[in-house]
């Protein structure tokens, strides 16, 4: 039946992209808040996240400690804000590496094809088959001592094959479109085509995937924390906090709830933004 309706879509129809919506901007705001908190944590009027106030152990949320304290008297709110640094640093850092390497390679390979593409893609697929999570766990457990930078590097490199594949596929879909071929025939240089035709069209997919990638990496950091492979305590990280809280859960439920909430909210926002961007820019998606 869609064919029948196609007859009518030839005519002028107002171009209507899927609206981004209020929720989108709220999520973007929350994300911005998180980033702001992470970057400027040192300048904010927060109690020292590592300072244990022994007179206020396991305090409930209140005036002095916005979200309460943990079993060592440390302020939870402050720890969460500082912890966001780890999550966001890992998320952003890993994605920068992954995209920084994987995206240009993917685009180039998709555009150039030929031997360059064949070899590189074969290599990437081999790497892809190796489960990234295992590799990350393995390398991090062997490559001691722990360091935030190491975590970022390992996760970042592990994500390169995935990014490569996604970007390459997306670019191929566009590079084979007629208007790109037309540009080539008209004599546009490769550089021009890459920047003017391919990049703007791959960007939306790339950005949306990037956000979802950040979300995935944040989850990964959390999981690594449980395995003891994340940053060493007492450095606060959401994963560490949740992990450490297990022993005192019954006495101090806030210790579990707040970091979990912080993580889930951030993930929710990232996923939502990524999803909305994708459906906003993808005009080929089936709409009902």
């Amino acid at each position: 039946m869609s064919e029948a309706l196609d007859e009518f879509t030839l005519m002028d129809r107002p171009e209507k992209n899927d609206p981004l919506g209020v929720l989108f901007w709220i999520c973007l705001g929350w994300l911005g808040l998180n980033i702001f908190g992470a970057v400027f944590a040192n300048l904010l009027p927060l109690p020292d996240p590592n300072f244990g106030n022994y007179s206020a152990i396991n305090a409930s949320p209140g005036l002095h400690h916005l979200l309460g304290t943990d079993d060592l008297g440390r302020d939870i709110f402050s720890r969460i804000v500082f912890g966001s640094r780890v999550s966001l640093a890992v998320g952003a850092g890993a994605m920068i590496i992954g995209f920084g390497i994987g995206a240009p390679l993917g685009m180039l390979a998709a555009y150039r094809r030929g031997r360059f593409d064949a070899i590189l893609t074969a290599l990437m697929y081999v790497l892809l088959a190796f489960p990234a999570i295992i590799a990350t766990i393995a390398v991090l457990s062997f490559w001691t001592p722990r360091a935030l930078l190491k975590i970022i590097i390992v996760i970042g490199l592990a994500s390169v094959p995935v990014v490569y594949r996604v970007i390459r596929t997306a670019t191929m879909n566009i590079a084979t479109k007629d208007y790109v071929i037309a540009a080539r025939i008209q004599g546009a240089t490769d550089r021009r085509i890459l920047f003017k035709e391919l990049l703007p069209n791959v960007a939306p997919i790339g950005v949306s995937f990037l956000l979802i990638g950040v979300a995935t990496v944040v989850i990964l950091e959390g999981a690594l924390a449980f395995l003891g492979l994340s940053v060493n305590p007492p450095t606060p990280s959401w994963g560490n906090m949740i992990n450490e809280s297990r022993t005192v859960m019954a006495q101090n439920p806030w210790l579990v709830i707040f970091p979990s909430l912080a993580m889930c909210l951030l993930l929710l926002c990232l996923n939502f933004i990524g999803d909305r961007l994708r459906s906003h820019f993808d005009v080929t998606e089936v709409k009902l």
Partner: protein
Amino acid sequence: MSEELLIVKDLTTTFATASGPLTAVGDVSFNLHENETLGIVGESGSGKTVLSRTIMGLQPRTNVAVSGSVQLNGFEVVGASEDSKRSIWGTEVAMVFQDPMTSLNPVMRIGKQIDETLRVRLGMDKAAAKARALELLELVGIPSPEQRYRAYPGHLSGGMRQRVVIAIALACSPKLLMADEPTTGLDVTIQAQILNLLDRLKTQMNMSVVLVTHDLGVVATRTSRIIVMYAGRVVETGSTREVFKHHRMPYTRALLESSPKIANQSHTRLQTIPGRPPNLLNLTQGCAFAPRCAYATQRCHQERPELEPSSETGHSFACWNPLPATTSEGASFS
């Protein structure tokens, strides 16, 4: 006077789109007798495909509103539930679709696709269904049916695929066959074959056929009556001969003239209809063809003409300023 197989009255189909309601089919009425072939002609966007689907009740289930009446052998299609419509689909009425590559299930063997109809609708067992399927394949002119039975649609040529679609449609011997542009996607040489096949089968199986197409050459010799559609409405209808020889509506004339004719000299300029097809979301209140019509009057732009039977000729048309009744040259397609 043979029985009326199909009675269509004031049929209107409206789609609820993101940009507002779109009336794809507006107030269409006609009758179809047994063993008759009716042609529905129009350009892309004329609503002919939507019409054929709506007649069968095959329009999408959501965001579509249908009003009017379609009586098929006494069964009222408009407003019927999907369940009750299912009881007539395949057994009373069937459809041949335009593109056999997309209308056949690409991952199911063609034999199975025919079997399915026979087993589910006629309750045949496996062996009987296979035997009948092979018969049908032969009937539609597919050589070596035994081999083809196990083939996937992708293995067959375009013409053969369409024959399979026809076989599926005929499996339960429906009384009415809707053929929606059955040859448009095929090679010209195959087109004639398929159309001849349809002619033959129609007589053999005692069916009526509704042939939907944009190609006037197709309807000229194979239909007894035609309907000309524009912007979802019927603008001219009558016996094929009448309409070809004594058409009154300028759109019909333009349509006839824009078809290339073999008889013409080489390098004869192709006639086109100026302007663009109308935007169905934004129809003017007058005749939909007025903006492109060479004979349009003030009234044409303001008031929409109704379909009126003509006194001089034997057919009906909708036009305020029709062409003169006596046209010496009819279009001929030989």
